[in-house]
């Protein structure tokens, strides 16, 4: 805890030193004195404080820019053509402009989480007071590792989170200012600032999630979190259905409370889409998770919801139009997403209900979460019975419409995955709905095909009809998000992770913009669960993991435990719960390795980068929030793999494994600079196929600190996956085998032969006590 902005004003003070008049003392921040850990070197770092650390990372992982646009259109000098070596009117280069856009994206992402956190914190303080203790996880003392690390404060109550959030907001303003015309110009400095935005994002996410865990009684890091149901089929359509979309749970909490207070769960079903669904189920497991973000159009078009409630982030901005299409009202609940609706926050609830039920207004804006529950539930109970006769489109209607297809191919051109939409429509015209059903599993639900169609086919509805039998069978169990990893779990697995005996921690996170459907995420998860990695997951990925069953009808949540341990599948929760993943990495450095945590960012990041085999995977990354979450990982030295659509973030951070000079670290024991091989090879990388990603994930789990036993385990996974998917041995084993003891025993002959061909020599690659920070060298050679 810290005290802010102490100001002491004394009109007159007489002392042995003399008499002072008009004495005024201002102190920016006083750090808590009952925390015995000394304040580290970088409390509340400003934009440039960690620049030298960032530049170390960016020296190894150089940006490869792939401009999404050749122009800069941000000021009235432009548009400026930046192609090749051209410069804009302000002097900016193409590299500068691309990195500037990366920074802007990360600022948008971090601001979104910070705004979410602010709304959450302000509301919870108003509702429960500032003194709510931050009881976040069982068996845990380090309740807020990101906040402790970055800010150097130890929050104990909701009040203390305000300090962290104030800091985040202040810094974000600085970062956005840096993107103004004629400010920052160097691409690496833009990149460093993007890292800063990412770091801030993890602080903001941590604020939001620990506040809601503490105040709303969500699961406190329990491995056996309650199980809820996911999928269309989980919704009891005999009840009135309320559909909540977005990320901020507060309005939904009021709906659930109202249902409980009035004993209405028997009549009303609450289903959610995207992260609100996760957090609803963390609040009350009777709330159902309908599915990931990409199901918005699908679910609305199904006609199942009777009222749609939107909060914030990743909403379809045409939700009002879609709701009108099925005759249901919309309740918007955030000033960030007013949707053009009239603010009825101050009106009598029954009057609002009357207007919604009678269709006098298509929707309302209610920004006080405490009023949402009553309005929404009462409206749903009245609208539901009226909609009992709602008829969705029939297959016969689809077939008839499909006959009018002009065969222009615009739907295919518009599809992000070039799916054979037109062929499926043609088949439907002939009464064959199987091709439409096949599209269902690969479609990202964006609706661009509809927008492009010159005859306005509701193609998402067509696809729904094609897959209607499969859709109603969709019902999967999922453990609700458990939140943080307990300190005691970190103690139990920290050693095995750091020495490489648990081969890695794979974090499957992020959105649902998949190249070939969500089943790839489940496939990646299972591959690494079988290999005894720890798999943690959040957001849409955590949902998609649930949606694949094996031949016995079991999904991964049924087959693997929720323990943070080898072979554990840990649903952490929603987007803002991602802070617990970086938090776990930070806690490994602090709790297992006893590295000082307080305001000690560089040392902890250096530890994680060189020792903790964690890899982030955002297979369907879509949003700016995903960019800032990734940036927070980059600054900690954690590599992130994205799917092919992630290449649209327009910049990779790639190592060059053949450049020996890039892969040197200090041996903290001697101060010698030694070559450790390219581990991890990349910091941000887009894979073309899931198979390529799996091989790369295994490879990126290697760290300089691996023991021989640990490196052998990691190599065995890398080689095995490479052989299976590429049909051959990797051609870079000589860069990862440091000595013969690193060679997996079962592949020894084959590997030694490959090493011989590559001219490998034992001990050319060092096994030091690795650090990139000169100041951590304990002894000089």
């Amino acid at each position, binding site marked *: 805890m810290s005290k802010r902005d102490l100001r002491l004003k004394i009109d007159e003070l007489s002392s042995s030193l003399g008499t002072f008049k008009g004495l005024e003392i201002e102190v920016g921040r006083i750090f808590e004195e009952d925390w015995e850990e000394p304040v580290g070197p970088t409390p509340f770092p400003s934009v440039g404080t960690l620049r030298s650390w960032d530049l170390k990372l960016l020296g190894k992982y*150089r940006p*490869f*820019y*792939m*401009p*999404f*646009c*050749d*122009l800069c259109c941000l000021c009235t000098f432009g548009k400026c*053509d*930046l*192609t*090749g*070596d051209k410069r804009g009117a302000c002097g900016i280069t*193409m*590299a500068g402009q691309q990195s500037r856009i990366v920074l802007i994206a990360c600022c948008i992402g971090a601001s979104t989480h910070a705004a979410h956190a602010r709304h959450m914190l302000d509301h919870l303080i108003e509702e429960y007071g500032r003194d709510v203790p931050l009881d976040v996880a069982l068996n845990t003392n380090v309740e807020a590792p990101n906040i402790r690390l970055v800010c150097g404060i130890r929050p104990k109550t909701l009040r203390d989170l305000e300090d962290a959030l104030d800091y985040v907001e202040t810094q974000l303003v600085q970062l956005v200012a840096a993107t103004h015309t004629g400010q920052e110009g160097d691409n690496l400095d833009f990149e460093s600032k993007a890292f800063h935005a990412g770091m801030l994002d993890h602080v903001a996410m941590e604020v939001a999630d620990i506040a809601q865990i503490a105040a709303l009684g969500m699961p406190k890091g329990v491995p056996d979190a309650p199980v809820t149901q996911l999928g269309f089929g989980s919704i009891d359509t005999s009840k009135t259905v309320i559909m909540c979309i977005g990320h901020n749970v507060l309005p939904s909490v009021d709906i659930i409370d109202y249902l409980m207070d009035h004993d209405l769960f028997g009549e009303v079903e609450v289903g959610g889409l995207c992260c609100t669904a996760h957090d609803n189920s963390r609040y009350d497991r009777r709330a159902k998770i309908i599915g990931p973000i990409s199901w918005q159009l699908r679910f609305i078009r199904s006609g199942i919801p009777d009222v749609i409630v939107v909060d914030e982030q990743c909403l379809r901005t045409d939700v009002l139009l879609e709701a009108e299409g099925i005759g249901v009202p919309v309740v918007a609940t955030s000033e960030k997403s007013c949707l053009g609706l009239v603010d009825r926050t101050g009106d009598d609830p029954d009057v609002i209900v009357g207007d919604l039920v009678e269709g006098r207004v298509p929707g309302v804006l209610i920004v006080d979460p405490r009023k949402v529950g009553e309005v929404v539930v009462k409206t749903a109970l009245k609208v539901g019975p009226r909609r009992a006769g709602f008829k969705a489109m029939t297959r016969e209607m689809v077939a008839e419409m499909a006959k009018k297809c002009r065969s222009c191919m*615009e739907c295919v*051109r*518009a599809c*992000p995955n*070039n799916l054979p939409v037109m062929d499926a429509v043609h088949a439907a015209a002939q009464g064959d709905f199987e091709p439409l059903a096949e599209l269902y599993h690969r479609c990202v639900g964006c609706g*661009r095909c509809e927008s*492009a169609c010159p005859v306005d086919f509701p193609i998402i509805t067509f696809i729904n009809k094609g897959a209607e039998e499969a859709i109603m069978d969709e019902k999967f169990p999922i453990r609700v998000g458990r939140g943080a990893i307990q300190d005691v779990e970190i103690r139990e697995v920290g050693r095995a992770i750091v020495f490489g005996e648990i081969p890695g921690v794979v974090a499957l996170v992020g959105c649902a913009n998949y*190249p070939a459907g969500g089943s790839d995420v489940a496939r990646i998860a299972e591959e690494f669960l079988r290999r005894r990695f720890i798999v943690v997951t959040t957001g849409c990925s955590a949902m998609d993991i649930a949606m694949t069953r094996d031949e016995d009808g079991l999904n991964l949540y049924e087959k693997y435990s929720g323990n943070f341990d080898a072979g554990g599948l840990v649903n952490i929760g929603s987007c803002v719960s991602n802070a617990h993943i970086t938090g776990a990495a930070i806690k490994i450095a602090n709790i297992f390795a006893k590295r000082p945590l307080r305001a000690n960012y560089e040392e902890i990041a250096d530890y994680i980068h060189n020792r903790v085999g964690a890899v982030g995977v955002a297979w369907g990354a879509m949003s700016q929030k995903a960019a800032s979450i990734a940036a927070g990982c980059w600054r900690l030295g954690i590599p992130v793999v994205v799917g*092919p*659509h992630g*290449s*649209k973030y*327009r910049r*990779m951070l*790639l190592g*060059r494994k053949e450049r020996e000079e890039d892969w040197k670290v200090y041996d903290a024991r001697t101060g010698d600079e030694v070559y450790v091989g390219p581990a991890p090879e*990349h910091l941000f*990388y*887009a*894979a*073309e*196929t899931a*198979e*390529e990603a799996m*091989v*790369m994930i295994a490879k990126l789990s290697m760290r300089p600190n691996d023991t021989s036993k640990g490196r052998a385990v990691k190599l065995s996974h890398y080689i095995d996956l490479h052989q299976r*998917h*590429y*049909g*051959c041995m990797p*051609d870079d084993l000589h860069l990862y085998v440091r000595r013969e003891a690193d060679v997996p025993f079962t592949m020894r002959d084959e590997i030694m032969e490959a090493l011989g061909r590559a001219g490998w020599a034992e001990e050319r690659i060092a096994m030091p006590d690795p650090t990139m920070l000169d100041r951590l060298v304990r002894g000089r050679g």
Partner: protein
Amino acid sequence: MAAKTIPGQTAEIAGPKKAFVIPKPEVAAAMIKRAKRALLVVGSDAINSKTRDGDLVDSAIRLGRMGNMTVVATGHLVGEFRRRGDEDARTMPLMNLGDRLRDPGWGGFDGGGPYDLALFVGLPYYMEWLVLSGLKSFAPELRTVSLERAYQPNASWTLGNTAQEEWEEIIDRIASILEGK
């Protein structure tokens, strides 16, 4: 040959510097013949792309041999080349490859120096679009050619939007010219 220059995917419009459309297969074949060091980049969609040789993997093997080009498979495609008896094809992730192609100091797969021509085929449209965009701005010495069925605005040269049958004929014709037929 079609010469439409609308992008193959909606909204993937070109910047001020746009690709020239290859007017006929002979031009593409001539570029390959004239190149000092040519690289054929084959993406993971190749196995789903039918050609007169079978699929694009078969055609890539043929083009590589006849054009004296190094063939590099991206994604996890190289296994397909091995299964078809081609031991020469190299493998490299597309991002790594793009990063190296923009580096004039990269010696190529055989250490013989930078490539002066890189041809792309069989890749997800948007990934190829982006890598070609990176090369357009950051690899000024490299000439890039897209052999996809759809117009790729960021290449130096590209085939236009082309019907399947016509595209199969173009690929076959390029290989035939390189074979001296």
